[in-house]
């Protein structure tokens, strides 16, 4: 694997995570518990779409095959997607969406804070923008986790169920492979081993502040990096890529 190939894959991973999150968040449109929350989640979806655009555009440029962000988003199959499984899981109830946001936004805040120092200038500049959004997403998730965890019996029960259910997908966020190793050597990729303990500490703290208990010893799911997904991704892509599949020659 060359550095160029590794960088292409690295950008795809980050871009796919943003794209898949954008899809799930946008499903909350007209479905949130309040109009204010509807707008907040749509806004996060908007952030994620912009992020996907920046990262997939760069991936295409690195690859050098003239692929645009849209080619990569709309004309790849599910085995070619390399997002983390947690991001493709269905939204579930509002507590599940908040639990995911808590896990993922905390991760992304730490991740992109590090990526800002990447030796790759383009990634560093994308990260500088993303980190601000992630901080905001994380704060939003924290606020809700505390409110739901300490709200009513029902909200506490739902919030606990949500973190328990999603826990087994959190380990994958810290998995590394040859792509990471190669790019770590060049100071391009983030050292995931470094952010893992910080993430764990922050999540443990938030779970405690929310009056909840940490999930215990779940087996960690894996597969996203290799393009082996849960069954949900295929349906997502079927819907997302509907117009490209039905009218392959059309431009929109």
């Amino acid at each position: 694997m060359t550095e160029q190939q590794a960088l292409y894959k690295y950008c795809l991973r980050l871009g796919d995570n943003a794209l898949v999150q954008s899809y799930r968040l946008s499903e909350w449109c007209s479905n949130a518990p309040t109009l204010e929350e509807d707008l907040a989640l749509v806004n996060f979806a908007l952030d994620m779409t912009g992020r996907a655009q920046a990262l997939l555009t760069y991936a295409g440029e690195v690859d050098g095959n003239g692929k645009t962000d849209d080619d990569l988003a709309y004309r790849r199959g599910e085995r070619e997607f390399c997002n983390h499984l947690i991001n493709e899981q269905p939204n579930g109830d509002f507590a599940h969406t908040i639990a995911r946001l808590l896990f993922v936004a905390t991760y992304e805040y730490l991740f992109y804070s590090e990526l800002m120092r990447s030796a790759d200038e383009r990634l560093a500049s994308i990260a500088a923008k993303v980190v601000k959004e992630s901080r905001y997403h994380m704060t939003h998730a924290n606020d809700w986790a505390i409110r739901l965890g300490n709200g009513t019996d029902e909200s506490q029960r739902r919030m606990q169920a949500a973190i328990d259910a999603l826990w087994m997908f959190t380990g994958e966020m810290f998995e590394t492979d040859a792509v990471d190793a190669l790019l770590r050597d060049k100071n391009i990729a983030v050292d995931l081993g470094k952010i893992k303990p910080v993430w764990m500490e922050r999540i443990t703290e938030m779970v405690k502040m929310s009056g909840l208990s940490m999930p215990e010893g779940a087996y960690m799911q894996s597969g996203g990096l290799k393009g082996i997904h849960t069954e949900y991704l295929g349906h997502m892509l079927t819907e997302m890529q509907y117009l490209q599949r039905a009218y392959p020659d059309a431009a929109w």
Partner: protein
Amino acid sequence: MELLEKNEKLQDKASGSFEAKIERDDAIEPRDNMPEGYRKHLIRQMSQHAHSEVIGMQPEGNWITRAPSLRAKQILLAKIQDEGGHGLYLYSAAETLGISRDEMIAQLHSGKAKYSNIFNYPALTWADIGAIGWLVDGAAIVNQVSLQRTSYGPYSRAMVRICKEESFHQRQGYEIMAKMMSGTAAQREMAQDAMNRWWWPSLMMFGPHESESPRSGDAFKWKIKRSTNDELRQKFIDKTVQQAEVIGLKVPDDQLRWNEEKKSYDHGPINWDEFHSVINGNGPCNKQRMAHHKKVHAEGAWVREAAEAYRLKEEKLN
């Protein structure tokens, strides 16, 4: 005694000043004295307007996950976010009249409050997203520009702010249509089909002729309304027909003709039977839109309760 007299005098002055203010084209503000009928009329109109913004998120939301490019998705998300923001802004403006958002939503659910009839039609293809932005927002702008001069201050200010965003929506919708009209045969067909389905309902958005519009007398007297439904409709037709022609779309009205004398278009008869039928609940999506709003509201109850319970606990602690 003295105080009472003073009070009455003040009130006299205030009630007298309502008509005077209207006469002088001064804005009426929340604390000003106003006739009960004026307040009620505004609550009805502004809550309907707010509900329309919110219910309108449903047909457009129907295409978010299928938006055909990342850019298209961003534009659509931002538009829907604007519309929700308009809803929030209008709910707050209506609250200055002494009604809460909860009450307005309850009235929507009971059927007492309405929303724009246009959203009882389905968004079937991607071209519908273009047609909604171009025609529906285009019609809304004509109405809302006129409402910028409405007599109630908070409503008028809401319209000024909202109109700026609406013109973006209209342009972006038109851009979708233009792009499809310069695309493949299938895309052109899709665009024309959307035009055929949305044209007449868009004309109906302005409401029936004034003679058949039950409450319009008061609305004119109180300067809530400044132009007749027919005047606004004509304005919309005149600016839209040429836009259609430029990109090769046919307006689905065989009787549409330029009238050199009045310098505007004559159009064919509007099917008001359909309009009344849809308003009375027989549109393709009336039940779907309301059922969805009620379901989401009910499903979100535990979240709102939790937020309230947490707020009360915090209040006790501090």
